[in-house]
């Protein structure tokens, strides 16, 4: 396990009794969640509400009931653009690359909420230190990069916001199987720098190697939560929800 050897003290992102949905269709029925140091994984079958839950954490889907807090800041009902200023960055499914912008411009968009030019420069240097492969690609359009490189742009762009907590929505989706390990390697690099990661993943096997804590959602409710070691004892649960 990667276990955040965090030099920084990252606040806990917690959600209590979250109910949410689309129009009148309720998807989440009272989810209580707490992020841990390192990687907190959220697993569950299709339609279990994983993505919706992640979107309540970053403000894209409004919460009907319940509260979201980050450390001692109440984020319930905050807009996505406010939440990012508190240090939570999201990587949407597929990375959310701005394909028509160059790699450098993508990184600059990540720093829109940052006013301090010196801090922006430092962070850009940090991104290139973590993902040196991007150095030569700065002037290229992001859409012309390979899948793995796009993921670096996406992670790097999230780092530019200055976030300590990263919400990742299925980063391995759409990547060639042999790239999945590389992708998780990139996430590990973030964690090694003291970041906290909340990870939604279909590829349970690969993600479990990274997980420090696991939640399993099904039908909009938490079915299991605990360290990954405990999960191996829950054979039935594993088979039922994760197909392992």
């Amino acid at each position, binding site marked *: 396990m990667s276990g955040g050897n965090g030099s920084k003290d990252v606040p806990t992102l917690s959600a209590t009794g979250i109910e949410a949905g689309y129009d009148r269709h309720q998807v989440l029925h009272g989810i209580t969640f707490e992020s841990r140091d390192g990687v907190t994984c959220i697993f569950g079958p299709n339609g279990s509400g994983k993505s919706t839950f992640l979107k309540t954490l970053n*403000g894209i889907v409004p919460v009907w009931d319940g509260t979201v807090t980050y450390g001692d800041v109440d984020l319930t009902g905050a*807009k996505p653009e406010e939440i*990012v200023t508190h240090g939570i*960055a999201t990587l*949407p499914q597929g990375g959310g690359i701005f394909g*028509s912008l160059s790699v450098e411009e993508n990184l*600059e968009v990540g720093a829109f909420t940052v006013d301090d030019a010196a801090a922006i420069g430092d962070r850009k240097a940090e991104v290139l230190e973590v993902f040196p492969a991007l150095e030569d690609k700065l002037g290229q359009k992001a859409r012309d990069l390979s899948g793995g490189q796009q993921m670096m742009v996406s992670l790097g762009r999230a780092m530019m*916001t200055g976030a300590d907590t990263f919400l990742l929505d299925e980063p391995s989706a759409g990547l060639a199987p042999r790239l999945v390990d590389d992708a998780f390697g990139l996430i590990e690099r973030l964690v090694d720098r003291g970041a906290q990661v909340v990870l939604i993943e279909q590829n349970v096997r690969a993600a479990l190697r990274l997980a420090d804590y696991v939640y399993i959602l099904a039908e909009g409710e938490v079915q299991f939560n605990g360290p990954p070691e405990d999960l191996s004892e829950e054979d039935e649960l594993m088979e039922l929800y994760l197909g392992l």
Partner: protein
Amino acid sequence: MSGPVPSLDRLPGDPRYWYAGLAVLLVAWPLLFGAFWARIGLGALMWIGLAQSWNMIGGYAGYLDFGHGAYFGIGAFAAGIAMAQFGYPFLVGFGLAIVVSSIVSYLVAVPTLRLTGAYFAIATWAFAESIKQTALVTGITGGTFGLSLPRSPDTFVGVPVPFAISETFFYYAMLVLCLATMALTYYLFERHEFGYRVKALRDDQDAAESLGIDTTRVKRQVYVLSCVVAAVFGSVHAWYIVYIHPNDVLAPIITDRMVIMALLGGLGTLTGPVAGGLLVFLLERLSSVFLGSTTFYLPLIGVLIMVTVLFAPSGIIGILRGEVDRDDVRKNVKELGEKFDLL
């Protein structure tokens, strides 16, 4: 960042000479070629500007606005009403066009920009149609009779107007507006941080929001800006054309033209609307002058659009920049051939 006008930079020799030559040609155009070509030139400049205004929302922001022509008409009627109904000078009408189009476009933006894709297109199209129908039945717009603007005097705020109010005068008016629109687009969309926000929201709205971009606000800003630009051209057009009618200045073909020009030239590029605007406008004028009708040009445009969408989605500018992949074209041709059993 890449240069703004790659096509000129690529010509042999120092590009500065080409720019200088272009500038001289633009300024000397009506003096060299007379009233007929001045009229052609001012039409081309107006359509380039209109295509660029559509390109802001449709190309850069990716919101397919099928009601954009309404703002051209709103601008025309704002100027027309100020001048014909109240006897104000053109400048008042010009200001009114800006004020009215900002207010109307903001009111339209709030509900419709929640929609995307085809739904946004349909909503804006319906809005434009309702504006046209309203203009046809209200008194202040002249209803079905249209509105005749007073012929402008040869002085403007007391100062004699050079070339009086002639083709030459309007050529220069459109030249100034068109260049201002180009400069504004270049600065805001290609150089300023605002352009990044717009392109980010087009490429991936959720990602843009999660990075702290207030996408609702940015969308409204682009929409209002693009509508005001269209209205400004509309107001000058009314002043020039002297007689305006809802069936002309609020015709759906106005929107269609802007869309076609931007699409053919290259969506979301600075120079695309220039290339597309020139091509479509000149095709229409030439077929009207030499064939006596514009019937022929419509199917031709149809074919051009099909070819563009299928083989060169990045438009004329994409072809000039070498962005069109031969293999893609070959693949598309092959698929099409198989579909229709041609090969």
